[in-house]
C-alpha cells in the first residue's frame, strides 16, 4: 500500500483496543495524513471500515500479511479535516 505518515502498533491487542488506540492516535495527525494501524485481531477487517464510516475518516485500504503463521493486518486511514 505504501505511504503512511504515522504507524500505530496494536499487535496483541483485542477489540476494542485497536479502535480506541486509533481514535486517540488520529488526533495527532494533520488532515490528509495517513495512519497505518497494525493489528492481529481479525475483527479489524470489518471494524476499521465501520469506524471510518462513522467518524468520517477515509479508509484507504487494508493489507493482510502472514507473519510466522499469524495474520497481521495493516489498515490505512486518511484523516479528514
Amino acid at each position, binding site marked *: 500500500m505504501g505511504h503512511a505518515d504515522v504507524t500505530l502498533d496494536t499487535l*496483541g*491487542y*483485542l*477489540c*476494542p*483496543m485497536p*479502535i*480506541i488506540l*486509533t*481514535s*486517540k492516535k488520529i488526533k495527532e495527525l494533520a488532515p490528509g495524513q495517513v495512519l497505518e494501524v497494525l493489528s492481529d485481531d481479525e475483527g479489524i477487517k470489518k471494524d476499521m471500515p*465501520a*469506524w471510518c464510516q*462513522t*467518524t468520517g475518516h477515509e479508509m484507504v485500504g487494508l493489507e493482510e500479511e502472514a507473519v510466522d503463521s499469524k495474520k497481521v493486518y495493516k489498515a490505512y486511514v486518511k484523516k479528514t479535516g
Partner: protein
Amino acid sequence: MNSTTVEPSAALAELRETKTDKVTIVVLSGDMDRVMAAFIIATGAAAMGMEVTMFFTFWGLNAIRKRGVSSKAKDWILRLFGILNQGGADALPLSRFHFGGLGTSMMKRVMKRHHMPDVPELIQTAQDLGVKMIACTTTMGLMGITKDTLIDGVDQLAGVSTYLAEARRGAVNLFI
C-alpha cells in the same frame, strides 16, 4: 406566495442537531462479563465519536463502587446487605464459572495474557473518552449505597426521567 422549500443543507443540519449519534446503556448486572460487554460497547462508541451515557442500577452499581467500602446506611438490613454485597470493579464475579472466585481469577489471567483490559481499566478508558456515568438514586437507596462509596467521576445521581430524556434521543439504547 409563501415558499415552503427547505434548503437541503439546512434540513440536514437540523436533522443532525436533533438526531445525534447518541448511545445509552443501562447496566443492571454486576457480573464481570456483562459489565465488560457494557464498557466495551461504551468505549467503542465513544471512540467512534458517539455520545455515550451509562446508567448504573441494582447490581450494576457494584461496578462503580469503591472496593471494600461497605454501606454506611443507618438501617441494619441495608448495612448487612452492604457487607454481603461487596462492590468494586475488580471484585465482580463471572456470571458463570465463578467457582468461588477461582474461575474468575483464571479468566482474569487469560485476559491479561491477551492484553485485554479488565473492568477497572475499561472504566478509566471510558472516563478518558468522556463517557458519562449516572448512578440510579432509587436503587442506591434500596441497597444502602451512599454517594461517598461510589468511585470518583460518576457524573450525576438521577432517576428514570433523566434516563428517558437521554434515551429518547439515542440511536442505540441497550439494557445489560
